[in-house]
C-alpha cells in the first residue's frame, strides 16, 4: 500500500509512515483542532496496513514533544492497534524519543510500556 506522509503543521506532527520499509514515524506536537479526525484517518490507514498481515517486524519512532488530551485519547487507540499486532506475533519495536529534561513525556512512555506490554519499548532521552 501507499506510504503515508503528512507534513507537520503548527498544531500537528509530521507523520511519516513508510509502509514499504515497515517504519512508522511521528514527530512534533499534536493539538489539532479536531484530534479525532486528524488521528482517526491515520489510525484507519494504519489498521489497513496491519490487517494486510505478515509477521515481519515493524519499527515505530515517536518523537512527540507535546500532545493534548484529545490527541492522547487517539494515541491510545494507535498504540492499541500496534499492541494487538504484536500480540498476534509480529515484533513491534517502539522507539520513544523525549527531551532528556522532559519528565512528562518520559513518564508517558513508561506508562505506555506498562499498558501495551507486547511492544518492544526503547526509551531514548535526547539532549536538548
Amino acid at each position, binding site marked *: 500500500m501507499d506510504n503515508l506522509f503528512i507534513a507537520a503543521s503548527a498544531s500537528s506532527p509530521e507523520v511519516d509512515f513508510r509502509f514499504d520499509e515497515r517504519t512508522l514515524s511521528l514527530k512534533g506536537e499534536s493539538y489539532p483542532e*479536531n*484530534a*479525532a*479526525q486528524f488521528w*482517526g484517518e491515520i489510525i484507519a490507514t494504519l489498521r489497513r496496513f496491519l490487517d494486510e498481515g505478515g509477521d515481519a517486524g515493524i519499527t515505530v519512532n515517536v518523537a512527540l514533544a507535546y500532545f493534548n*488530551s*484529545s490527541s*492522547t*485519547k*487517539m494515541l*491510545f*487507540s494507535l498504540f*492499541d492497534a500496534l499492541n494487538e499486532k504484536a500480540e498476534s506475533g509480529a515484533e513491534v519495536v517502539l522507539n520513544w524519543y523525549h527531551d532528556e529534561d522532559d519528565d*512528562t513525556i518520559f513518564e*508517558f512512555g513508561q*506508562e505506555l510500556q506498562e*499498558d501495551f506490554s507486547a511492544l518492544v519499548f526503547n526509551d531514548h532521552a535526547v539532549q536538548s
Partner: protein
Amino acid sequence: MSDVDLFEAEAEALERANGVLASDTGDFARYRAALEELVQHYGQLMRQSRRLISRSDRTERELNLLNARLQQLSDELDYKARHDNLTGALNRGAVFESAHRILEQSAMSVVVLDIDFFKRINDEFGHPTGDAVIRELVDRLRLALDGVGVVGRVGGEEFSILLAGVALDEAVALAERIRQAIAGEVFPCMPSRPVTSSFGVSWSAAGGDFEDAYARADEALYQAKRGGRNRVEREA
C-alpha cells in the same frame, strides 16, 4: 467530517449492546457477546481515563507552580516600578501617586529635602561615595521617622516625606529632628566632611492639590538654601 468522535469505537460498542437489549432476543450468546465487547471497552476506558486524569493533574500542578512564579515576578516588577533601586524609597511617580491618594482622604504635610552641595560631593569623592551618602541619608531618615510617613526619592539628591494627618508645626519639628540626625554625626562613608541638608515644609487640607503643596514646600526649601542651608523652613 466533523462527526468524527473521540469515542467512536466506544459509541459503536454501546450502540450494538443497546441493539441487543432492544431486540429482546432469547439468544443468550448474543447477550454474552455484547457484554464481552462492553467489558473490553469499559476496561480500556477506565485505564485511559486514569492515565488522562493523572496527566491532567500533573499539568495542573505545573501550571499552578508557574502561576505562582508569574505572580511573584509580577509583584517584583510592580515593586521595581514603584521604588528607587538605590535606596528602596518610593520613586517620583509613586510619591505623587501616594500623595494624591492620601489627600483624597486626609490632610497632609509634605517635607522636601535636598542634600547641600551634593554636586561637590560627587565631584570630589566620586559617584560611588555620592551613592553611599544617599543610602546613608535615607537610612537616617527612616530611623528618625520611626515608621511615620512615606519616604520617596523625587530627584537625584532630593527627597520627600509625606506625612498624612500631621499638622504643619509637628511636621516642621519632625524635619528639624531629621536635619539633626543627618548633620549631627559624620557619615562613615565620607568621614572628612559633614553632610547637611535643607528642608522645606508645607501643609494641605484634605482634598488639596498635591502639585500646589509640593510647589509650596519646594519654595520653602529654596528659602532654606538661600538662608544658608542646613536648616528647615516652612511655607510662607
